[in-house]
């Protein structure tokens, strides 16, 4: 009984910790722009309104940022996961010299201070014409998500019973059939998990997003949020910003709701087995 009560308290605390700030943004987003501008220090809105969402939905620049973020993150994720799958397969299954070197490079890159790159990258990108373009963001996103993807995938791949492939071949399946029918279904969840984690990373990026873009041509959501323009020429509109924040948080909540098991498995896979 006592443990149950303790668990209940712990549960409530965790839920409060995780959801309270989200509730705060949600509540803020229902405050009218006028209420927030006049100072509205209480938690709940005095007069809830959906106007802020309407403003955000009609904001062409924000729409562009959403398209940019989705497009760039998806492309970067796809490419990154493809490259990582190849690499992780090699690391998990093949015995080759320099495996450790590859893993060390991945580790070093995962720890890399990204800000120290924006200067030279900006300088390079402006010469190559990549500044403020989608590829200009896709490339760095790929590089920085690869370590995470490689780790997650190689951890998953190590668990796959590869003998089954040979068994299938012995049973008369061609190499391709064996790969498609046996290995793909086994590897798919890992690839999918790696893709989600990679997507989160790209979706969350801010440093590259503000440094390597300058217009809505490529500016992603986090940067657009930081530049949000409201009716007050001098201050960002608190409640509209909250509404925009809510709108970019909803996809995350949906992904998390649908795939929580996979995400947790992916996050912890590489870590424990080292």
């Amino acid at each position, binding site marked *: 009984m006592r443990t149950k009560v303790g668990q209940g308290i712990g549960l409530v605390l965790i839920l409060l910790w995780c959801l309270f700030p989200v509730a705060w943004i949600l509540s803020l987003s229902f405050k009218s722009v006028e209420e927030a501008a006049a100072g509205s220090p209480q938690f709940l809105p005095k007069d809830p309104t959906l106007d802020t969402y309407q403003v955000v939905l009609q904001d062409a620049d924000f729409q562009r940022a959403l398209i940019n973020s989705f*497009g760039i993150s998806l492309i970067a994720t796809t490419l990154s996961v493809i490259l990582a799958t190849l690499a992780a397969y090699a690391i998990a299954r093949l015995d080759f010299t320099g495996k450790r070197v590859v893993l060390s490079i991945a580790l070093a890159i995962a720890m890399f201070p990204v800000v120290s790159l924006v200067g030279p990258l900006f300088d390079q990108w402006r010469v190559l014409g990549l500044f403020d373009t989608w590829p200009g963001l896709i490339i760095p996103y790929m590089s920085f998500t690869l370590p995470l993807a490689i780790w997650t995938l190689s951890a998953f791949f190590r668990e796959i019973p590869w003998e089954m492939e040979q068994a299938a071949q012995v049973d008369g399946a061609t190499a391709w059939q064996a790969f498609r029918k046996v290995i793909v279904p086994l590897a798919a969840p890992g690839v999918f998990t790696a893709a989600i984690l990679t997507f989160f990373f790209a979706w969350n990026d801010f440093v590259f997003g503000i440094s390597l873009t300058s217009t809505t041509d490529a500016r992603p959501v986090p940067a657009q949020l930081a530049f949000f323009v409201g009716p007050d020429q001098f201050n960002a509109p608190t409640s509209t910003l909250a509404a925009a924040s809510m709108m970019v948080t909803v996809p995350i909540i949906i992904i998390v709701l649908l795939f929580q098991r996979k995400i947790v498995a992916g996050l912890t896979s590489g870590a424990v087995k080292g």
Partner: protein
Amino acid sequence: MGRPEPHTASRRKHPRRRQVALGMVAVIASSLLAACGGGDSGKPTLTWYINPDPTAPGGFKGAFGQAGIAERCSTDEYTVETELLPQSATEQRIQLLRRLAAEDTSIDLMSLDPVFTAEFADAGYLAPVPANASEGVLQGAVEGASWDGKLVAAPLWANTQVLWYRKSLAEAANLDMTQPVTWDQIIDAAVENKGTVGVQANKYEGYVVWINALITSAGGAIITETDKGADADVGVDSEAGTVAAGIVEKLANSSAAQADLSVSNEGTVIPYLGEKASDPGGFMVNWTFIYATFKGGDEAVFKDLGWARYPQSVEGKESRPPIGGINIGVSAFSENSDLATQAVECITSEENQVTYAIETGNMPASEAAYDDEALKKQFPTDLLELFRESIETAGPRPPSPYWNTVVSAVLSKWHPPSEVDEKTTPEETATFINAVLDGDALV
């Protein structure tokens, strides 16, 4: 119109690339191709990067502010389209400079804050503007659009700060507001009457606007001989600098300072002037848009709103109010710079300046525009006269390609305002600016 293409193109090609191992190359190639093939058929589009305008009032129809000007200035020959820059002047500068440093041809026209106009011109990013663009423009605005003795951008509108206050509070303090007042007087008056003095003192460009005004009003300058670039003369460590630091120190340590002084900006100071008539209110220095803001607010407060010349730093010495505004520059990398130059003439025409002023409350840069009947209907005559005079006698921030560096250096010594010390701050600032300009110190 031509803009969305690179994105849709790269997205459309996406599934096909899936099978290619090195798909990245394809992404780059496809996007570059799409970017190059962006030219529209026939009529060229001039892209004008604008700073945000205030929101259009409810019920306003059609394109507002600079977007409206763009619409009116589109001709059979070209279309002018606007692209919105971020809110803060600092951020606008960064966004534009980054594009220009990349020699991006997609900028044709840009709205430039006077403080970074010099830097853009010095870097060679600005194409010449029409020779007659300075005709009939108020002196303060011309200075903010010139570099190396030449007009490098065309002033669209000019901003200035005046002293806004609550008449009831000034009355209670026995201040004669028809005469010039000093900072000491208004701080004391506010303290006695439980009011506040609103200034902009966040760690941003706006705080340097205030510091610069305090110093120029006392007869000094933060830097001079700015045409020497990094070798400019630093003048903060002077009597004027000490006077300015003294005023900041006095306000920051008095009860007239607002609670959020160290993060205050043009917007946060507004509520302190009172949301209802019973609030004590106080004084505030702020730009011209305040009139329109209060006109739309509480009626009793609006009736009690007074305006006067920017306060003096030294009693008896005419103040040199801040000046701001927007200049229109033509990009040196524009593929249509002839057309863009043509468009500048239309954008900064007197007619557009007046319409813009009526819509947004941002005052014209052209002298003659102040006599416009429509404008006179919108603003009280004495206020218009105050604005005009304030712009004409303004103390601009020194036009220097290194201004942004100077701003950061000043801010790092003057922020937070409560730590300013008239005895040490000016000297430390001068030493520091010199070190920073020489590349010996970080800022």
